[in-house]
């Protein structure tokens, strides 16, 4: 594996996950190359968030495995997972801010607990990241004092705080106004282009998807239904994909 060329960074092999009777992921295969900007789309409840959580082993597969740089992470202990999790940053769909901490402490917590930074360095990094998401003025607020969109952006700043090489964004622009959403899209593109970050973004926002994706993957019924470039997806005649990206209520996808 050479350093510069792209390689298989993440390999999801035959991943299955069920909750009780409900099968969410069904022998799903997906490979992500370093430098990719993959957008995952799919109906609400198809398992996009569940898939992201498997990538950093917040959920354990029922069967199948996840490889990061060829290393199977399925059976690793907490300590063994540490170096892998440090390569990732994750924005949760619910933002998942720590509500006992201020915005500044939220963004800086990972840095502080890693013990690689001094307090003044942490402060500088945190303010820089908050500035990138347009929230430098909210540093002293608590999460309960923020709007939904502001929480999302704090979650974003927290995800990128330690400059991880792989970023997982779960609906980064949901709940944002169109202008702020575009700022976040630009930020995702910039991190991907300039810092060569590999990113995986779950979104329902097709404008955002076309803007940031080098590849779009659609999940449907626990499997990858479609995998291609934004141009591929616009020209595909796959009826499931067509129905989804054009947002039609009638078609092969049935919403009960």
């Amino acid at each position, binding site marked *: 594996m050479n350093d510069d060329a792209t390689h298989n960074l993440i390999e999801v092999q035959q991943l299955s996950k069920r909750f009780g009777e409900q099968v969410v992921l069904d022998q799903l295969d997906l490979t992500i190359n370093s430098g990719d900007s993959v957008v995952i789309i799919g109906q609400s409840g198809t398992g996009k968030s569940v898939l992201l959580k498997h990538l950093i082993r917040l959920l354990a597969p029922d069967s199948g495995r996840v490889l990061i740089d060829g290393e199977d992470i399925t059976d690793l202990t907490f300590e063994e997972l540490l170096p892998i999790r*440090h390569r990732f940053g994750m924005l949760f769909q619910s933002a*998942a801010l720590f509500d006992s901490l201020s915005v500044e402490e939220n963004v800086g*917590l990972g840095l502080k607990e890693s013990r690689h930074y001094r307090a003044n360095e942490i402060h500088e990094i945190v303010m820089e990241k908050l500035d990138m998401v347009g929230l430098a003025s909210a540093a002293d607020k608590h999460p309960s004092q923020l709007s939904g969109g502001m929480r999302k952006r704090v979650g974003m700043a927290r995800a990128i705080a330690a400059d991880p090489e792989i970023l997982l964004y779960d609906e980064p622009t949901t709940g944002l106004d169109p202008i702020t959403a575009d700022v976040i899209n630009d930020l995702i593109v910039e991190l991907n282009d300039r810092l060569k970050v590999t990113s995986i973004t779950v979104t329902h926002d097709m404008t955002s998807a076309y803007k940031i994706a080098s590849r779009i993957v659609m999940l449907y019924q626990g499997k990858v239904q479609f995998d291609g470039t934004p141009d591929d997806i616009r020209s595909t005649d796959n009826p499931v994909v067509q129905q989804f990206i054009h947002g039609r209520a009638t078609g092969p996808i049935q919403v009960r």
Partner: protein
Amino acid sequence: MIRPISGLGSFGVRTVSRFGGMTIMLGEFFYALRKLPRSMPLFVEQMYQVGVRSLPLILIISVFVGAVSAWQAAYQFKFIGAPLRFLGQAVGKATVIELAPVLSALVFAGRVGAGITAELGTMKVTEQIDALESLGINPVRYLVMPRILACLFMVPLLVTFANFISIMGGLVVSIIGVNVSSETFLFGFRDSFKLTDFLAGLTKAAVFGLLIGLVGCYEGFRTRGGAQGVGLATTTSVVTSSVLILVFNFIFAMILFRL
């Protein structure tokens, strides 16, 4: 006929798996103790939250526990015709070996155990615990260890305080309500006081503290669902730790106070 029995069976299975889970968490707690220096600020914060903020409540219950034990002892003495000068002995013994440790622990379970479960349960269902892990922070070291340790240290301290206040409560009642002088009461108390009783009470208190912290954290971490799940977990936490306190108290009685 079948259903209650199979219901009992599944209750049994759930109970066994719950205590299995608690044992595992206890092991993780001891393993995380080696990182105590790193979690020192969190531990100090929990000592304050868990201990200092429980003082007013312990104060109030202890005054009344002492008062009622003096009153009830006097009532029994009168009934069996025992001399009232032994009131200090009776109140002192009962307080130090049973009343202060057990009642403080039960109240502590209701206040602190419930609070721990509600806080960690909310963090669980709002994905904050997942977020900690995603940042490479061990939730056991960051959340569980400081809380259990704070309970382990604070319950014995609170019980020491409760002992003192209860005796004072008993003293006041015996002077005002029973007409036993403070000299007589305190002489009786000193006469019967044994350091080993006091230390046995503190040992029990430490174990109760550990149980409350452990059950509180465990139930918090296994919370599912939304607000309803948090409510359910909190109730389960208080009920489980209260039952465990009373069961362990009986076991302690058999070990420490041999007939």
